[in-house]
Every structure is written in structure tokens, then in C-alpha cells.
């Protein structure tokens, strides 16, 4: 049994008042996620990521296709006991405090008052909310709301967690904390399905990813399969380099391109051959100094941009342009 499974999941919205035309927010999504995976659901804005998540939460209903979580159709009440969800740009009840919100949600899962309070407290600690927990949510900043959102997604110790843009609104420290949290969740055997348009997070966390573009699944698989981790060149940061030496190296084909970082200071892209050590030795012999030498690999970003630009929207096949979604 997969943790999450969809088959030809499709959602069309109707736009246009006089001559309604369908707008495909999601078109025939088929994918599966195994238990214990951290799965990255990637794509630019408007690719259909949030639509997919809402379909999985049964906040909207599919036009066709099916989706299952933990072997049961989405919306199954028993399954909802075992999952958690962080919506995009979470907003909760203004007038409640963070503590009260978590206790409320915990009680919906059936926790008794005292147990609910303990659980709420633990979670607030885990996401890094301290004394602010007694403030009304209307006073919370975006980052703090995001943390509360993550806390409420975990309130029932879920087996599967769905996170829509979990890092949004967080500062670098916050991002690191949440990254570590997700790794801890993986350690506990939790399946994490998160959507993002920030690739660095996916690279750091995911075992498998799916890339969405324009409502369709563009590519899916293990990260290592999709992205060739071969080295395609070297990056050499060097100082004390004179223009003439640089020109010479370029003419020799030892340097592909350069970026000036300061007076005499350059970031050079070196080809695979000749070996970078030799080029470095030559430059040092002519008075330069080494700052750093690093291999250049294909990144997820390169892969991503290739995939997305390959699936640019087709304009003339009778489908509508994207409507203003509220």
C-alpha cells in the first residue's frame, strides 16, 4: 500500500460567464509516494501544486480521476485521524491564542483536555514558539504563524504530513530549524509530502521529487536519477590575476569564462581537461594566489529550468488562459 497514490487526477475550473470554457488547473496527475519517504512536489507558481494538495485534503473535488491516502479514498474520516496538513499562507482564528488553537485542534482528534494541553505545549516548543503562545494569533507575524501552522499539522502525530510551502515566511534560521524538523520526522518513519518552489530545500531533504508545470507532471523519480551528478567542469576562485595572464589562459582554452569579483580577483570556469591542478599551477607560477577550487555539477535548478521551459503553455488548443483564482 502506498502512503499516497493518485491516478489520472484532474481538476478543471470553468471560466467565462457567457461561454464557459474549462481551465485545467490539474491534468491527469498519476503518482505514488511510499511510506517513510520525504517527497518533494516541485514547480513554479501556478503549476498545480496547491490544487493537488487541496484535492488530497478534499477541500475541492476532482473533475475526474482518483486519489487515495493510506489505501483509502481521500476524505475518509478514519484516515484524517492519521494525517496532518499545513495550508499555504496559513491563517487561523484571530481571537484564539496559539495554545488555544492547538488545544482546540487536539480536542477534535479526541484528546482530553489535559492531554491536549500537554501535546500543544510540546509542539509549540518543538517549532520554537515560546512565551508568545499566550498571545492572540492576530498579533503573530508571518513567520510565527508559519510555525504555528506546522505545529497544528503535527498535533496528532500523523503518519503522513502534507506541507504546502513549509519554508515560506521564515528567515534563514527558521528554515534550518524546519529542515531539521522534517529530517526528524523522517527519522520517526513519518511520510512527508511537501510542495515548494525553493529547490535548495528539496535538494537537501528529498529522496524523490516530482516536477509540475502548467498543471501536468513533467518528471518524477529519485533525485539522483533525475539530476546527473557528474562533474562538468571546475570553478576556480583566484586572486592576484593580471589581465594579460587571463587573456593568455583564455586563448589556450584553459579558461571557459570568467567573472570579475574585484581588483585582480576572479571566479574562473575551467573545462574538464586539462586537469585543473595544472592550470592552477600555471597561474600561480605567474603570480596568482588560490582562494578556492570546486567541482561544477548539474543542479536541481538546471534540471528544473530545463523541464519547465520545455513544457511552456500551448496557446492555441482551445484551453482558456489562467483565471483570477481568489
Amino acid at each position: 500500500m502506498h502512503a499516497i497514490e493518485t491516478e489520472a487526477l484532474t481538476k478543471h475550473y470553468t471560466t467565462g460567464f457567457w461561454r464557459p470554457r474549462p481551465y485545467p488547473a490539474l491534468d491527469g496527475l498519476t503518482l505514488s509516494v511510499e511510506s517513510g519517504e520525504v517527497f518533494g512536489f516541485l514547480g513554479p507558481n501556478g503549476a498545480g501544486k496547491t490544487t493537488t494538495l487541496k484535492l488530497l485534503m478534499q477541500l475541492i473535488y476532482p473533475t475526474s480521476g482518483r486519489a487515495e491516502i493510506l489505501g483509502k479514498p481521500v476524505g475518509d474520516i478514519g484516515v484524517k485521524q492519521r494525517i496532518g496538513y499545513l495550508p499555504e499562507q496559513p491563517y487561523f482564528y484571530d481571537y484564539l491564542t496559539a495554545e488555544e488553537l492547538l488545544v482546540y485542534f487536539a480536542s477534535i482528534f479526541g484528546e482530553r483536555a489535559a492531554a491536549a494541553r500537554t501535546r500543544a505545549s510540546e509542539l509549540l516548543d518543538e517549532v520554537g514558539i515560546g512565551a508568545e503562545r499566550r498571545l492572540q494569533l492576530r498579533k503573530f507575524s508571518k513567520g510565527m504563524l508559519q510555525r504555528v501552522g506546522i505545529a497544528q499539522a503535527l498535533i496528532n502525530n500523523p503518519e503522513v504530513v502534507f506541507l504546502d510551502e513549509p519554508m515560506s515566511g521564515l528567515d534563514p534560521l527558521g528554515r534550518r530549524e524546519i529542515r531539521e524538523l522534517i529530517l526528524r520526522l523522517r527519522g520517526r518513519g513519518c511520510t512527508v509530502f511537501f510542495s515548494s518552489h525553493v529547490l535548495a530545500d528539496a535538494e537537501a531533504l528529498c529522496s524523490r521529487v516530482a516536477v509540475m508545470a502548467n498543471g501536468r507532471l513533467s518528471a518524477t523519480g529519485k533525485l539522483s536519477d533525475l539530476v546527473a551528478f557528474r562533474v562538468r567542469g571546475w570553478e576556480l576562485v583566484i586572486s592576484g590575476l593580471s589581465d594579460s595572464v587571463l587573456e593568455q589562459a583564455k586563448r589556450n582554452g584553459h579558461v571557459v569564462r570568467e567573472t570579475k569579483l574585484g581588483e585582480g580577483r576572479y571566479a574562473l570556469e575551467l573545462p574538464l581537461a586539462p586537469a585543473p591542478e595544472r592550470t592552477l599551477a600555471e597561474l600561480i607560477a605567474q603570480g596568482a594566489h588560490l582562494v578556492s577550487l570546486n567541482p561544477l555539477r548539474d543542479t536541481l535548478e538546471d534540471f528544473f529550468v530545463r523541464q519547465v521551459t520545455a513544457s511552456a503553455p500551448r496557446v492555441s488548443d482551445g484551453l482558456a488562459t489562467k483565471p483570477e483564482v481568489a
Partner: protein
Amino acid sequence: MRTIGLVAISVFRESVRDKILYSLVIFAVLMISTSYLIGQLTAGQDVKIIKDLGLASISIFGLLIAVFMGIGLVWKEMEKRSIYALLSKPIRRGEFVVGKYVGLVLTLFINLGLMTVAFYAVLAYMDLTTSADIRASWAAPATDIQMLRAVALIMVELMLVTAIALFFSTFSTPFLSAMLTIGLWVIGHFNDDLRNVGGYVKSSVAASIGKALYYVLPNFAAFDAKAQVVHAQAVPASYLVLTGVYGLVYVAFVLLGAVTIFSRRDFI
């Protein structure tokens, strides 16, 4: 069931922290208190005026609370998206709607209770400060318990108004919901005229439509026993029961409609 109770309590908690609600209630209590002063403006009619004004205030302010809380109840959650997190929890959409309704009815009940207490307090004061021979001329005592029958009917009326406001709020904006709800309330008070449209208009099509509407639209005029209790006329228990059951059955109908619509809509 349990989840309905949880949602209801959260609605009640929200209302307690809602400043607008406070102002409405305070204003209502003020109105009832000043009715005492207004009573002094007319010769010999003061008790009647206090009773009339008091019951009217309870009715009107109750209506305002019912409509303005009812229309925002579901709409606000959908608009602000606080509903996303909640519905991902093990709670059915229908339970959510019914829970909201129960919470609002609870709020109404408490507020109505507060206003009624203020009402009787003013009347008790009137009673204490009036001489025995004037009191003897009153048709009914100042703190006549029978007036609670009119208040009970007002409560059922407001339960129906709330259900209707909630129903509209599952699919339309607050402004429109308010207009539609108040519109139905107004029409419901002219129910008798609907029945007798045939007497005013020559067209028989209009008469049939009028009659059909008379049977189908909520008959709010039936909940008005204010004039009767002020004049110490009996409101028979059978009337209370019949009208009460009518109100509750209509509430069930409207709520089922609201649940049906809410369960099937997309939250984009």
C-alpha cells in the same frame, strides 16, 4: 456529535471576544433602561410603553445579532481560509455547519437572556416606584411572567433567522446574505397579505403564486405575540407548541439545505 459541540463552543468563545457583539448588547440594555424615561412622556401609559419598547428592543437587537453574526459565520472562515486547516482534521463538513449553528444559537440565547433580565429589572423598578392604586389599574402586573411566552417565540423566530443567514452564508457574500435574510424576514411578516393577494390583484396567476408563497415562505408574523402579552391576553400553550414546532421543522429544513450546499462546494 462531539465535534459539533467543539465547534459550537469555539463559536461561542469567538462571540464573547467580539467587540461588536458587546456594543449591541450594551446598547440594547441601554434602550431598555431608557424606555423607563420615555414612559414618563406619556400620561398614564408608562407601563405599556416600557413593555412595548422593551419587547421591541429585544426583538430588534436579537435580529441584528442573528443576522450579522449568521452571515459572517461561514463566509469569514472561507474568505480568510481558516477553514482549510480545520477541514483537514477528522470533522465532517456537515458537523462544521451544524456546530456553527449551535454555537450561534447558544450565543443568542445568552444575549436574549441578558436583555430579558434587564427588561424585567426595569419593570420591577417601575413596580416599586408606583403607588398601589395606579398599579391596581394595570391590566397585568409590571413583571408579568406571561411575557416570557412572547420572548420564547422571539427566540424561536431568531433561531430560524439565524439558520437562514447561515444558509446564505455558505455560498454568498455577507452583504447579499444580509439583504436576502432581512428580505425574507420582512416578507415573512406580511404573510397574511400574501395569502390575500387575490383580494388586491385581479390576476389569478398572481393569486396562486401568492398563495403558494404563503405556504412555503417562513411565516415570521406567527412568532409575534408581543402586543398580546402586553395587553395581558392569553397566548395558549397549544399556540406556543404549534408555532414552536413549525419554527424548528423549518430550521431543520434550512440547515439540511445549508449542509447539502456546504458539503459539495469547492473551496478555491
